């Protein structure tokens, strides 16, 4: 494994809802709670978890789009929240983002050439002909015809728009790409095209991906390592193959089990399904946040919060762990 590219230390983001100045209500949502995570150079780290577990918040913290409540994010050893203006500018060149919604991520009133060229003009790297050449090069790279340069986003399909978004993210030759569910809004046939494009680009430029997804088959195809989140906390982290084949945390096991099976002949095996509701992140239960739904729950789970500990090259936050 290579060097650590970006690392979060005790990262916390709490959203406080005071309910206005007349209300005494004070609710705290712990969207990201004490997350320690390392992303190594040239790897793909996938982040999985159900809706509302803090995946997108974590992604937005890693690129300094949100201020954390506590903790730090170190990019190449330096905390990104205390960088000088010049260093922040450099950081923003090296980390880029690919969005989930290909419709909302492109300004409807800008031409494609201006959208892809915006990072270049912002960092004063190119203008005029040099910008045009670079935009052509990028469009070629992501498989768009250069004749589309003067079109507007509404003239493209979802897959093409996502390609535009990728071209924009690549314009500054970043090292780290954070992909927030980049294919979940696309047709299945287009999904594979985009995933293969991302893989090709990774090989070509040695990119590092932080890949957020709902879709476990996508994760299995893309990731080197997988990080499983539940209610703002990392519950399991490890090698992709190992996690898929032998999950340690009960939540991971249920998550893997809930994934649809494409082959109908294999479908008749018994499925483990979770009972109950996801606990509200506003008032998470004491102890292990998963205890209300865990079939293996013991007394200690209701009282003590399990720590993320090393289990033979993997990390898992459970008092017992499967196998």
């Amino acid at each position, binding site marked *: 494994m290579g060097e650590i590219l970006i690392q979060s230390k005790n990262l916390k983001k709490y959203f406080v809802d005071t309910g206005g100045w007349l209300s005494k209500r004070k609710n705290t949502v712990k969207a990201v709670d004490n997350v320690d995570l390392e992303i190594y150079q040239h790897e793909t780290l996938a982040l999985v978890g159900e809706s509302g577990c803090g995946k997108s918040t974590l992604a937005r913290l890693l*690129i300094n*789009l949100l201020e954390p409540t506590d903790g730090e994010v170190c990019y190449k050893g330096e905390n990104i929240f205390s960088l000088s203006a010049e260093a*922040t*500018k450099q950081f*923003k*060149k090296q*980390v*880029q*983002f690919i*969005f*989930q*919604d290909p419709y*909302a*991520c*492109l*300004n*409807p*009133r*800008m031409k494609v050439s201006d959208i892809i060229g*915006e*990072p270049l003009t*912002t*960092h004063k790297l190119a203008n005029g002909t040099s910008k045009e050449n670079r935009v052509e090069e990028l469009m070629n790279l992501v498989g768009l*015809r250069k*004749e*589309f340069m*003067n*079109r*507007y986003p509404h*003239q493209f399909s979802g897959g093409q728009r996502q390609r535009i*978004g990728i071209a*924009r993210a690549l314009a*500054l030759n970043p090292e780290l790409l954070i992909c927030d569910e980049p294919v979940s809004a696309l047709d299945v046939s287009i999904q594979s095209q985009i995933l293969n494009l991302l893989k090709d680009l990774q090989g070509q430029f040695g990119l590092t991906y932080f890949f957020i997804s709902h879709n476990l088959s996508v994760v299995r195809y893309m990731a080197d390592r997988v990080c499983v989140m539940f209610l703002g906390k990392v519950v399991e982290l490890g090698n992709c193959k190992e996690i898929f084949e032998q999950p340690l945390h009960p939540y991971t096991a249920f998550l893997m089990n809930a994934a649809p099976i494409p082959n109908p002949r294999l479908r008749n095996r018994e499925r483990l399904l979770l009972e109950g509701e996801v606990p509200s992140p506003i008032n998470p239960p004491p102890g292990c946040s998963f205890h209300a739904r865990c079939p293996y729950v013991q007394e200690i789970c209701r009282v003590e919060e399990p720590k993320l500990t090393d289990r033979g090259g993997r990390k898992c936050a459970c008092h017992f762990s499967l196998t």
Partner: protein
Amino acid sequence: MESQQQAIEQSQYLEESFFAELIQSFKQNKSALVGSIVLVLFISAAVLAPFIAPYDPYNVDMSQQFQRPSAQYLLGTDMFGRDILSRIIYGSRISLVIGLIPTLISMVIGTILGLVAGYYGKKTDYIIMRLADIVMAFPSLLLAMVVMYTLGASLLNIFIAISMVNWAGTARVVRSQTLVLKEKEFVEAAKIMGVKNWVILLRHLFPNCIPSLLVLFTLGIPDAIMSEATLSFLGVGVQPPMASWGLMVSTGKEFLFMAPWVAIVPGVAILIVALAFNFLGDGLRDALDPYLKQ
């Protein structure tokens, strides 16, 4: 080469389709169409006033006092024997200027303040919006009159008075649009790239507010025309002998029973133009609203 040609053709087709759609929508919306036609006539009258006015609007001829509408004087004459039709035509110039310039000024102020309030939020938003609330809480006519009394009656001061009153509405609309737009992912993308805040405002937020601004603009013009007419009617607006429609109603009201046309004709002119702008504004709003499209 062929595909390039195709791409160009297609883009032209799509560019045109926006206006084609607008025209299509106006064809179905008869009141918007009528409004546009009236406004074209109104604007040509203002521009071509010296060529189409049958008489000099300032020429006093006491022998022709209070002539009824006739073949010689189509809309009659006033107490100084001036031809009312000519005065209406010249008055359209003032109405046009009063309609356009203060609306434009108030739109510029309102747009800037609305964008800033919506984008920066927190204290900035609070201060700007409370200021807008204060302006809106006052009866707008009263506020305009206070401005006119303190600054004195002149065309420039009418601009200031009307702009001061009208910016708040624009600011509110633009702010609410900005609040929605700034959460969009393309704004996030710009922030991630390190685009400066004012560039985001200018390049990403403002262009997406333009359709609403267009509607506000057409609806703001009749408001301004009405305000000028009211101010002139009350004697704090345009001063005689300038031919303003509001002023004509004001001076004509003394002879309402003896020569009703002196006050009624300019009154009807105000009504028609204000209605035409409102129809056009409504039509534009419907045409640009994606939810109303079939």
